[in-house]
Structures are given as structure tokens and as C-alpha cells.
């Protein structure tokens, strides 16, 4: 917290950096005023430390006719251990966008916090929100700064989705952006998944997703994709009716970003489990 120790009990009030340049980026400001608060400014570990840190896993995003949905399972793993059953890996980035994270949980959550402040800061200084593409680019910059740590097993790979307020008429307003560890930024069509179970989630979405889904139908494809990922990937958690832990799903539409209630997701998950077990019983003749 060295960044704060210079802060502002000294007689002169605001340090010069606070009054000097007028920039709208919180990250850029921290780089001059309190660089030690930035995740990218720390020494990179010399040895691989991937197994020492909890890792978050599968995140899924799909578009639907009025926007976009993003969901994530609740498991974090540390090597072969389950380090958390109820971690949250999908967050609202601002009113019209959400961010989901896979990879080293500690760094990822710090990055999400920084990103949330970054967007809010811009909004307060400029009096308007960044464009959706602008938000996606800012995030790419943050990932780029983490490449050194990524090579030592602390990769962070987010998935970003939002409602594009400037979408051309006719174009779908829900848009999804995926990233790689080097900060590469790719816009995805229709659906995307990141994390260890993404292979299975994407295969599931390939069969269930269509362009004109309603919000309710799209919610089902998200929960089902996470179910399929949990089925085959040990690092992805399935719905947990014993502890009443269900995937976290956010919907972003013209009304803004809303987290779907646990009851809503529980109902969808229970339907999927019931249908799957019925199908299994039919096929085995039991």
C-alpha cells in the first residue's frame, strides 16, 4: 500500500499527479500515482507456481435475440484438489457488460476489480460510457501485461460480453469477445467458452445453440453446456443440489446486466438432470 502512504495527509492536499494531466484511464493514472497497485508491475515468479494457486475453470457465453448471456461453474481447483465449491467467476463489468474469468483466480479477480474501476472511472470523468469495442480493447491491454506470469502457470483468460448500445439496426446487440494469454482479442460469433472444460462446453453448444433463441432457451443452453463440461472435465463443477450451489448466469440486454436468481438456475438445472436421467433409463431399459 505504498501508493497510499504518500497520500493525502501531507499538507499540500492532492499530490501533483492527481491534479496534473487529465486522462480518463484509471490504470494509466495508477501507473504514475501508485504503480505498486497494478497487477502487471510485480516481479514474475521464477518457477512455475501454477499448482500453488487456485484456478477457476469453465465460462460460457451465448448470444440470444435480445442480448447475451454468460455463465460459469462454481469450482476452483488447486492441482488435484478442489479449492472452492462456491467461487464466483462471472462479474458485471459495468451496467451493460459482463466478464467471466478462467485461470489463476487471485490474479483474475484482482484484474476484474481493476477493470470494473477502470470502466466506472472513465464514465465518471468523461460523463459517458466507453463503446463496447473500447471496453474489449482495454481488457486486452490488461491481459497483455500478465504474459510473464502466464508463462509461470498463472495465466488469466477472460471472456467478455456485452450489449452494444451502438449496434447497427438489424445487427445483434449482444456481442462476445474472447482472449488468449498474449492479449489477443477475438470477437466470437454466437457462442464461446473458455477454461479447462471449454472443449466439452463448446461441443455441447454446437448442438444446442441457434441464432434466434429466446432468453429462456439460451439460458438452458448455457446451463446444459456447463453440465456437459462438468460431465467430462474434473475441474468443472456440476450443479450441486445438496448444497444448493448452481452456476452463476448473467443476462445482458437492453435493460442492463442482471444476475439470474439461484432459483431460476436451479429450476433449469433440475430439468436438465431429470431429462438426462429419464433418457438414460430409457436407453438402458431400466
Amino acid at each position, binding site marked *: *500500500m505504498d*501508493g*497510499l502512504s504518500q*497520500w*493525502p495527509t*501531507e*499538507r*499540500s*492536499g*492532492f499530490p501533483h499527479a*492527481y*491534479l496534473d494531466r*487529465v486522462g480518463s484511464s*484509471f490504470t494509466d*493514472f*495508477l501507473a504514475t*500515482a*501508485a504503480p505498486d*497497485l497494478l497487477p502487471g508491475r510485480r516481479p514474475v515468479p521464477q518457477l512455475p507456481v501454477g499448482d500453488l494457486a487456485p484456478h477457476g475453470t469453465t465460462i460460457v457465453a451465448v448470444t440470444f435475440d435480445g442480448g447475451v448471456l454468460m455463465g460459469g461453474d462454481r469450482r476452483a481447483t488447486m492441482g488435484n484438489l478442489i479449492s472452492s465449491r462456491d467461487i*464466483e467467476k462471472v*462479474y*458485471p*463489468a*459495468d*451496467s*451493460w457488460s459482463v466478464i467471466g474469468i478462467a485461470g489463476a483466480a487471485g490474479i483474475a*479477480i*484482482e484484474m*476484474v*476489480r*481493476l477493470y*470494473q*474501476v477502470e470502466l*466506472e*472511472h472513465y*464514465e*465518471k*470523468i468523461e*460523463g*459517458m*460510457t466507453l463503446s463496447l469495442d473500447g471496453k474489449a480493447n482495454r481488457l486486452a491491454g490488461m491481459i497483455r501485461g500478465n504474459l510473464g506470469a502466464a508463462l509461470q502457470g498463472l495465466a488469466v483468460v477472460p471472456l467478455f460480453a456485452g450489449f452494444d*448500445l451502438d449496434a447497427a439496426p438489424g445487427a445483434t446487440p449482444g456481442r462476445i469477445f474472447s482472449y488468449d494469454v498474449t492479449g489477443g482479442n477475438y470477437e466470437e460469433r454466437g457462442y464461446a467458452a473458455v477454461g479447462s472444460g471449454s472443449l466439452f462446453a463448446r461441443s455441447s453448444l454446437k448442438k444446442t445453440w441457434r441464432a434466434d433463441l429466446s432468453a429462456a432457451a439460451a439460458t438452458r443452453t448455457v446451463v446444459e453446456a456447463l453440465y456437459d463440461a462438468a460431465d467430462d472435465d474434473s475441474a468443472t463443477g456440476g450443479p450441486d443440489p445438496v448444497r444448493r450451489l448452481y452456476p452463476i448466469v448473467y443476462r445482458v440486454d*437492453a*435493460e*442492463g*446486466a*442482471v*444476475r439470474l436468481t439461484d432459483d431460476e438456475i436451479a429450476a433449469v438445472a433440475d430439468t436438465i438432470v431429470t431429462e438426462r436421467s429419464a433418457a438414460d433409463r430409457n436407453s438402458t431399459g431400466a
Partner: protein
Amino acid sequence: MTMPYYASPEQLMRDRSEYARKGISRGRSVAVLTYADGILFIAENPSATLHKVSELYDRIGFAAVGRYSEFESLRVAGVRLADVRGYSYNRRDVTGRVIANAYAQTLGTVFTEQMKPFEVELCVAEVGTTAETDQLYRLTFDGSIVDEADFVVMGGQAEAVTTHLREHFSPGMALAEALMVGVRALSAVSPAMANGGGDAALLAAAQLEVAVLDRRRPKRAFRRVVGAALHALLGDGDDGAADTGEAAPSAHAPSTPAPGTPPGLGDPAAPDTAGGTEGSGEGGSPSDPGAS
């Protein structure tokens, strides 16, 4: 040869004060009032983009009069301070007092050490969970800081507006009522009105910048009241009906924010668009397990 001339410190300070006062008194006035559900900012400001009132943090707002370029850089500094503190500690650890103190120090230092003082007057307002915990700090160009109780008036005609408000203000008014009281007070002394005609007329919505810190909103309490919502509030207030207090919240709070409007314009009752929902880690502060 120029002679180094002597001026006594008293004379210097007096000159600077006079200079700053003159600069401030040229501008239009801003009133900050408490009302039942929070804090109301009313500025006479014909510009829709050069704001005199703005958001510093979740529960903290900012109002200023004087030289725009100067208070704008102070506003940016306040936003930066709030965001740095909130990011490195927690959102709950950002208070109006900290920001007001930093302003006071900065204004005081500039006043004593620089040739030219800031020609600004600021108000830092923090909305609490109850009306008793609302805070209004008024900061003047020399770095003095005053904790005011019910309202703060700054700018050219501050004295006259304050006198008017003392007569008509009462604590705990509904939003529409408080807005009418404030607009009447500003209109009574506004040079725009004096030129325009009879003192019965009020400032039009286009000449006003209105915003509230609404304590009922879950996270970011600051909200601008613009367009149809402002017209409705000003119109409702004229009738003086008893139910304006009930009608007001819905009148100025569209449940669907118009695309492009900054967040904080949604329905205060619905934990909707303000960067997260209740229970999702305090509006998306992921490292805060206690809040969910």
C-alpha cells in the same frame, strides 16, 4: 530599474480574497439541499455538457461554482482519490470527509503559496443511510471547510438565495417540493430572470442542471434528473398536491434506461443497472465476501 515593492501579508491575502470573490460572484448560483430521500443538487447552468454537478463516488457527489477549468481539474482529482482509495481498501472506506479534507488542503495551499488563488467554491455531499447521516461540506477558495446542516448555496448571488431558502426550506421535504423550493430561490435572484421579465416566472428546465444522491439506490446513488423526468418534476411541483412525494420517484426514474445514458438512471427500487446487483459481491467488488 524596478524597485522591489513591499506589500504586507494582510494586504496580500486581502487582495487574493477579493480577486477570488470577484471571480466567483460573476457566475451563476448552485444550491445543494437535503430532502427526504437524499441530497438534491440544483445548478443554474444552460450548458448540458459542461457540468457543475457530478458524481465522485457511490454515495458522494460534487458541486462547484467559479472558473470551470479549475473546478474541473479538482473534480477529476476527487474522482481519482475516491477510486484509488476504494480500489486499494474497500468501497465502504471512501468517505466524503476524506475528499473534502484533500480539497481543503489543496485550496488552502494554493491560496497561500500561489500568486493566483483558485476562483472556485465547492460542495462535497455524502448521502448516508438516514437523513441524520447526510453530510454537506462547503469549501471556499481559501481552503476553509464548513459542515453545513440543511443546505449549501454557492456562487454569485449566494447571500440572496440563502436568505430565500432560510424562509422556505424545511427538512425532510419530498423531492418535487425540495426542487421547487430550490428553483424558486435560484429564480428569485437569477440575472436571467431579471432580464426575461416578471419574477413570477421560474427558471426553465433547459437552464437547470439537476441531480440527486438517492439513498434508496443500492450502489451508485448519484443520478442526473434530465429531460422528461425533470419537466415532470417541475410540473408536478406547481400543483402543490400532497401526493407529489409519492409520484416523484417514478416520475423521474424510468425503469428502462434509454440506451446511451450512463448508469444510475434506472429505477431506484430495482437493483438493476448500476454495475451489479445486490448480493453479487456488493455491486461487483469480487474480493468482498462479507457483502454477499
